[in-house]
């Protein structure tokens, strides 16, 4: 049963992150996702300190605030201070993350978070964190419910906002010309990434959030040329990653989050080599054994 809850947690994080990550990598903002997932840390710590609890709501508010602050700081350094974009991202997230670590050390007694957990979470403890109703009934692990709720929100965002996300990602200039606000969709996506990061943080840590945001969508991107398929494939890959990662971790006796990141990488490697359209080995095989004369482009 524990295995089930852990895999389910991983799968929920994978699905939420993958759906958002698809749009992040198509917008060439993968590293902004990475930055946000690190930078929400001080928000979490401050929410801890102010609310003196692990309640979800203060956390979400803290995280969303920090997520928006991160994008804002990056934009500020880039546009107002005219610093190059890579350095703007790098400075912003390392600074915020370092502040988070210092806060944790400062309030070590009051904050139930340790440094390592920030990076790779404690997914193994998920089954122990039960939600007990007032009548004393156990409803299963609390994180699963929270992650499930967030996933529903993200599904809603992707389904209802599909066209808005698609057009502002594909051709922002055209979207603006038609009168669609690119700024609105940008911040909507960034807020969603922050919220997902923070609820996933406790159980899987920063590293797996980044891996799930970037790697399955990147793998799917190599396998298909349709956006809807890419989203579905990302979800499928996320599930596979969660399952295989869990068993890898059991086998090596190591961190589940680390193992899931590794298996996601294995799927990416397979796609790079064997993708039907763009795989390195597939193409080499095809050029050696051409089936027939392929029709030319025009």
């Amino acid at each position, binding site marked *: 049963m524990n295995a089930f809850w852990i895999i389910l947690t991983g799968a929920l994080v994978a699905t939420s992150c993958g759906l958002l990550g698809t749009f992040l990598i198509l917008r060439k903002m993968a590293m902004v996702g990475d930055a946000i997932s690190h930078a929400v840390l001080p928000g979490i710590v401050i929410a801890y300190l102010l609310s003196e609890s692990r309640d979800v709501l203060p956390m979400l508010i803290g995280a969303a605030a920090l997520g928006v602050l991160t994008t804002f700081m990056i934009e500020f350094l880039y546009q107002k201070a005219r610093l190059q974009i890579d350095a703007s991202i*790098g*400075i912003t997230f390392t*600074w915020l993350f*370092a502040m988070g670590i210092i806060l944790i050390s400062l309030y070590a007694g009051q904050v139930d978070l340790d440094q*390592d957990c920030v990076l790779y979470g404690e997914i193994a403890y998920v089954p122990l964190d039960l939600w007990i109703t007032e009548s004393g009934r156990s409803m299963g692990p609390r994180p699963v419910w929270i992650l499930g709720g967030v996933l529903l929100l993200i599904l809603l965002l992707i389904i209802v906002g599909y066209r808005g996300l698609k057009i502002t990602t594909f051709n922002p200039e055209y979207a603006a010309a038609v009168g669609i606000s690119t700024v609105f969709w940008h911040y909507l996506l960034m807020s969603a990434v922050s919220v997902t990061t923070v609820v996933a943080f406790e159980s899987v840590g920063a590293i797996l959030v980044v*891996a799930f*945001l970037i*790697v399955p969508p990147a793998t799917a991107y190599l396998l298909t040329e349709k956006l809807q398929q890419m989203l579905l494939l990302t979800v499928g890959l996320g599930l596979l990653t969660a399952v295989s990662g869990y068993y890898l971790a059991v086998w090596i006796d190591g961190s589940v989050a680390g193992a899931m*990141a590794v298996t*996601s990488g294995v799927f990416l490697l397979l796609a790079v080599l064997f993708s039907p359209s763009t795989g390195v080995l597939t193409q080499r095989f095809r050029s050696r054994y051409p089936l027939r004369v392929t029709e030319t482009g025009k």
Partner: protein
Amino acid sequence: MSDFFTFSDPNVRLVTAGTILLGMSAAIVGTFTFLRKRALVGDAIAHAILPGVCLSFIITGEKHPVYLLVGAVLAGWVSLLVMDYLSSRTKLSTDTAIGAVLSVFFGAGILLLTSIQHSSSANQAGLDQFLFGKAAAMTRQDIWVFSGVAVVLLGLVLAFFRSFKLISFDPAFAKSIGLPVRRLEFLLSTITVLAVATGIQAVGVVLMAALLITPAAAARFWTDRIQVMVLLAAAFGLLSGLFGSWISYTAPSMPTGPWIVVLLSLIAVVSVVVAPQRGIWARLRLQRGNARKIRQENILKAFYGIGEAADAPVATVTVEALRQQRPFEDRALELGLWELARKGLLHRHGAGTYALTPTGLRESRRVVRLHRLWELYLTERMNYAADHVHNTAEAIEHVITPEVEAALLKELDHPILDPHDAVIPYQNPPKPSAS
């Protein structure tokens, strides 16, 4: 505080010296990383080093710094190759390739690290300090090895300084003059990987990007010269290393690495704000200066306009008359009049009445002259209609420098009338040209 800065404790001396050296060498190498716009690649290399460190521990069973360094450099190089391959040979964009390598390699590192911890080999304690740095816990041996490497790195950067400068700035040109660009890039990448692998000792994997990039980014705001930039970056690395060590010396529960990074970030923020020319404060001052200039010159112009209409240039003028000449905002008019009086361009003749001083008259002529010259330039050289040029001239008259004025006068051959047939006021009216 005094305890620390006397450096009487040999252990403090050693650890502090080591931290400073690591910070400085990372900052110097990082200047090139910054100039080549590869900040995030540096971040990825730092993360990717972790599995290398763990593997070399698994293989050798020892934490000897040389072994760990070898593992780190190998892993760093592999990650670099994978990133290059993904971004150049697949349709993945560069940032996606960086993010994928970063998270997968780091995940592998975490997996190995936790696996080693669970196998509870007695020897492993301290490996996890790679995550956030272990400046204060460095052994004597660590410090000698890493400091040695840092010194070698500094030497290499010095020796190849001009080549590195060129390949960071313009690799195509470097190639065209016959520099072995590929080999130099290989060398620079290796130096970067080494700097990252050693710098991690101080601040850890996650924050390493800051040690590499932030000093250079801060230095960039102060100078346009790469030599100065490298020195400044090194100085910033030194300062933050020193004070980071001091903080964790006085408050042992405070982690050194994160403090170093926060200090570096503060230096960067201060640079962003106060640096001359590039800083935000300097730009705001420039803009305030522009606004002041516009405010004053517009008032001078109004004086000139009233004088021109009345044909009596230095007659006293009331504030009311100025308002009728031009729709000033109340506050701007008040402030501008006060500024002009203080600069000696105006005399105040009782309440609400002013007159131009001789300098003021000269200034007012200059502004009107520039306005009319620009209008003439627009109609003559750009063929714009005379009724369309006033608004632009209203702005550009404040921008034109004496050099541009001279060029305008030459180009338009010291004209007498503007497009609206108003006389262009000269200080010494030109002799009518001999036509």
